[in-house]
């Protein structure tokens, strides 16, 4: 018999891996902050991870060099949705410079739950899209935002 008893396995699992799907992660992915469109967006960018089919679009309203509003939309796994939601919350009120300085390491620590390198990609998707959005004014942007 190659199979161990079930209790043993469950126990081992609990100890060997830190829980990714923590309450705060699930709360964010089930009920994300600012998932939708930003009316009056001045900056926007969209990207995908073709490997897993995740897509994220970020829309920002930048006013006086500050992020007045941050919205995201898209399809993705729990990690990519939750991280996008956390990031949108975090961005609002920050200066454009602060957002530029907000690095990948900071994104991962904002997420809190520890991720394997594979899943870090999911967590960093919206962060990458935000970084590009700073340089992507929308067509009807009024010019008071950051044009990079």
């Amino acid at each position, binding site marked *: 018999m*190659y*199979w*161990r008893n079930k209790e043993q*396995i469950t126990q*081992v*699992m609990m100890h*060997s*891996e830190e829980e*990714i*799907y923590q309450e705060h992660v*699930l709360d964010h992915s*089930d009920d994300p902050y600012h998932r939708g469109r930003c009316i009056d967006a001045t900056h926007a960018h969209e990207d995908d991870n*073709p*490997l*897993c*089919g*995740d*897509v994220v679009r970020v829309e920002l309203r930048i006013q006086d060099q500050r992020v007045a509003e941050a919205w995201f939309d898209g*399809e*993705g*796994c*729990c*990690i990519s949705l939750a991280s996008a939601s956390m990031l949108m919350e975090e961005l609002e009120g920050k200066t454009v410079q602060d957002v530029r300085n907000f690095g990948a390491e900071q994104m991962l620590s904002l997420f809190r739950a520890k991720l394997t390198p594979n*899943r870090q990609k*999911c967590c960093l998707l919206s962060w990458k899209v935000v970084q590009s959005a700073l340089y992507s004014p929308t067509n009807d942007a009024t010019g008071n935002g950051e044009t990079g």
Partner: protein
Amino acid sequence: MPAVDAITPIDPHAWRTDFPILETRIRGTCPLIYLDNAATAQRPRQVIQAMVSAYEEHYANVHRGVHWLSDQSTDLYENSREKVRSFINAVHCHEVIFTAGTTAAINLVARSWGDSQVKAGDEILLTMMEHHSNLVPWQQLAERTGCTIRFIPVRDNGTLALDNIDELVTERTKIVAITAISNVLGTINPLQEIISKAHAVEAKVLVDAAQSAPHEVLDVQQLQADFVAFSGHKMMGPSGIGVLYGRETILERMPPFMGGGSMIRRVRLDGFESGDLPAKFEAGTPPIVPAIGLASAIEYLSRIGIAAIREHESLLTQRTHQLLQEVDGVRILGPGPAQTAGIVSFVLDRIHAHDVAQICDRHGVAIRAGHHCAMPLHKALGVNASNRASFYFYNTLDEVDRLAAALKDAKKIMRRA
């Protein structure tokens, strides 16, 4: 009652002892449940040993030396070709071209046959369920030649919609390239019907047998296919080896694809004469030991018996369908077990495929998550990503139960229970 050929049922536990990797404990503790066989199968000790012996005792370059060792190596390499010939029941050994895999084989046809035979205005017919390997090389051919690609649609139930086949297969059709078994849906396609339609308008047919060669009887004469491609690594051989079968009369008229050593008869400074089949299509030092490994895998497969493999996988697939249907919120992609091989893809309501696979992994269950190299098919099915469990003869019913348990756990963890 008509007499039925008795098939000795497979005892997977008996065969598993040949597969060292199936003893693996994930993260050192949790038994591995390997349900990603459509991506690549595992290999038994016998195949690994055949390759080790080849390196330790018989290895030299082939077709080049006059020395003893090179003869040994050449014999083993050419015997492997004969094993493959007999496995697929080809008429001639030289109709078996060793390639790096299915992808390389299809690219060879699209380049060599395609560039010489296809022109603007011609049509290539594919299906909407093709692996990217049997789609992108044709798209590239279309870019080069200006030909048009058309698609046989897939019904909601995951079978090919052949109602309008007569409008799709016309005198403009030059080749029909079609998978024998969908690597996502598991659907077994009616090849015979499509091949006879294609031949009626003098179109060629390429069968992508990557998913069928490990699990189904492959008889190229009975099938009447013009080209058949498959990979060693999905049928217990090593990676880096695959086969292109081509009908002799067609291969003979095709120009070589890659140029280099071995594929020539004579080279002058101002040109070359290409060699005979199969060398014409095997430029450079071939995958010698992988070919020997593939032959060993074929021997092993024949010992088990393809019919018995099919029977056992059918039990696994039926059980998977049954258990998955009992889990609320599971949508199985593809037709019922009667029309599918040992592949079951599914999506869980409001849980992303990645999260499902991650939680399955905690239970030691290795399944695939994503689009499985079939993005257009996923788009047609209206899903971004799916999960896929795929079986081989060494999988057990117990493992299917563990998969179902892992899915229930995923629902609980993700608060969807």
